[in-house]
């Protein structure tokens, strides 16, 4: 508890959880070098929930990889405090370990002593409402449960910044709704900063304090919206639907440009 408070204070003194400055990224493609991200500048404040929204080819996953440190930008700079945690569309849990041991591996790699790991893993499972699933194998869990274990494992990294790459895209609608509730609750409880990538406009509005729309080919920051609708929101709420409609119109406009060349 004391460490959590110290962390919160520390977070107060820094003004960003991630700072992306004039980042560009290009890959060698069949038609020469292809620019994927063009001059992206974006800050995620401590404790802020930001969604990155865009159609295919906007490079949102590429940007997330850059922030995660899995790849280097061609130009520009990215600053984070320590290594961010990353959640994928696939749960990426290791099938040779139980749910609990998956979480403990993250703790172990972070240097948490053996005696504390078990208790910490149980706590994290409780946080994602999976108490009692410590000894379950990955294949014994449903899709939604797997993503919750993956979330617990990401939280075990004790990073200030959580990157999420369309983590709920492969889930059915009922489960996704529930996981939105869970994520909002956990985000509020932990004070994490979240950078959440999605192509689902309503999901973006449902979750975020700020929605950043990327244009496609190359990816640029097209527009930003602040979402002031109080939490807990529901995806069916009228203000959520209204803002989603507005954003969808702009998104469609962006997509339409590509058909006109």
């Amino acid at each position: 508890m004391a460490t959590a408070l110290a962390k919160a204070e520390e977070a107060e003194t820094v003004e960003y959880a991630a700072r992306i400055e004039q980042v560009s990224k290009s890959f060698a493609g069949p038609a020469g070098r292809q620019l994927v991200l063009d001059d992206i500048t974006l800050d995620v404040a401590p404790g802020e929930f930001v969604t990155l929204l865009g159609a295919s080819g906007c490079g949102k996953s590429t940007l997330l990889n850059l922030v995660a440190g899995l790849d280097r930008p061609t130009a520009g700079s990215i600053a984070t405090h320590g290594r961010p945690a990353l959640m994928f569309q696939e749960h990426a849990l290791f099938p040779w370990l139980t749910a609990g041991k998956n979480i403990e591996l993250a703790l172990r790699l972070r240097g948490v002593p053996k005696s504390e790991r078990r208790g910490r893993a149980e706590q994290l499972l409780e946080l994602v409402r999976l108490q009692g699933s410590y000894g379950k194998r990955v294949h014994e869990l449903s899709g939604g449960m797997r993503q919750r274990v993956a979330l617990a494992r990401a939280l075990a990294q004790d990073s200030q910044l959580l990157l999420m790459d369309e983590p709920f895209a492969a889930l059915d609608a009922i489960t996704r709704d529930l996981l939105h509730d869970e994520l909002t609750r956990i985000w509020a409880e932990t004070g994490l900063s979240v950078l959440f990538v999605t192509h689902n406009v309503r999901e973006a509005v449902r979750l975020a304090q700020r929605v950043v729309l990327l244009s496609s080919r190359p990816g640029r920051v097209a527009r930003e919206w602040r979402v002031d609708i109080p939490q807990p929101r529901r995806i069916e709420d009228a203000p959520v639907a209204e803002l989603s409609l507005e954003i969808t119109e702009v998104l469609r406009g962006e997509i339409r440009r590509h058909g006109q060349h």
Partner: protein
Amino acid sequence: MASTETKTATDAGSVEAGLDALETAVAGRTPFRQTFVRKILPPIVATVVVLVIWQALISLRIVDDPTKLPSPSDVGGEFKRAWLEGKLLGYIWTSVSRGLLGFLFALAIGTPLGLLVARVRFVRAAIGPVLSGLQSLPSVAWVPPAVIWLGLDNQMMYAVILLGAVPSIANGLVSGIDQVPPLFLRAGRTMGATGLKGAWHIVLPAALPGYLAGLKQGWAFSWRSLMAAEIIASSPDLGLGLGALLENGRNTSSMSMVFEAIFLILFVGIAIDLLIFSPLERWVLRSRGLLVKS
């Protein structure tokens, strides 16, 4: 307001608990009766059928020459005699101890070799193709050179086993490592598992099923190579293993002894697989959900 908020929160929790329960399969233990009928009974029936046909061939005088086909009771008598003379377990142990020891050597050499080939690009380009090519070379081909180099002794046997089993084990590990999903490596890297830590915590456990398949095949190759070596290079100094028993049967024109040796070789091969490798493989696959209960 506050009360409705807590209500939504607990609500989400209970809905989630319900959904979890709905989506989690309830797995029960298969009753023994079912296992018996599906798994144990069929091979027993098959064995009985073979014995009945065999006996019928003799009784109906379709095959009348005991030097070509001995009766089941003759072969049984051969087993009984070897057992009463106290030699039966000796034959088995001579071969099995050689085979297992050779296999352990092969394991100790094949594993680091496989790691090198999988992880070092130069080594892979240099010896990778040869290593997979060696798998298709019958290991009996190694017996003549091994006899010339090492003479008729146990070292020669082990050399032949190694040459047969090492490529299988190394190749199993290589293909196991090649098939590790890139997603696991990325997930490991974001958690700080890079370099040796990554190899230990992510790559090796992820490659385990492929490695085990390699081990299983490696054992089969060890056993086959050993039998080839024992048949070709039988010598009284080497002790009487199963291959030598087979060769003795041929030399003394005792078809019952030949049958006895063949049955024993088959029995050991199946027993080691059933007792060691299959349970190990099934355990690994089942714990990962890769084995569908049939």
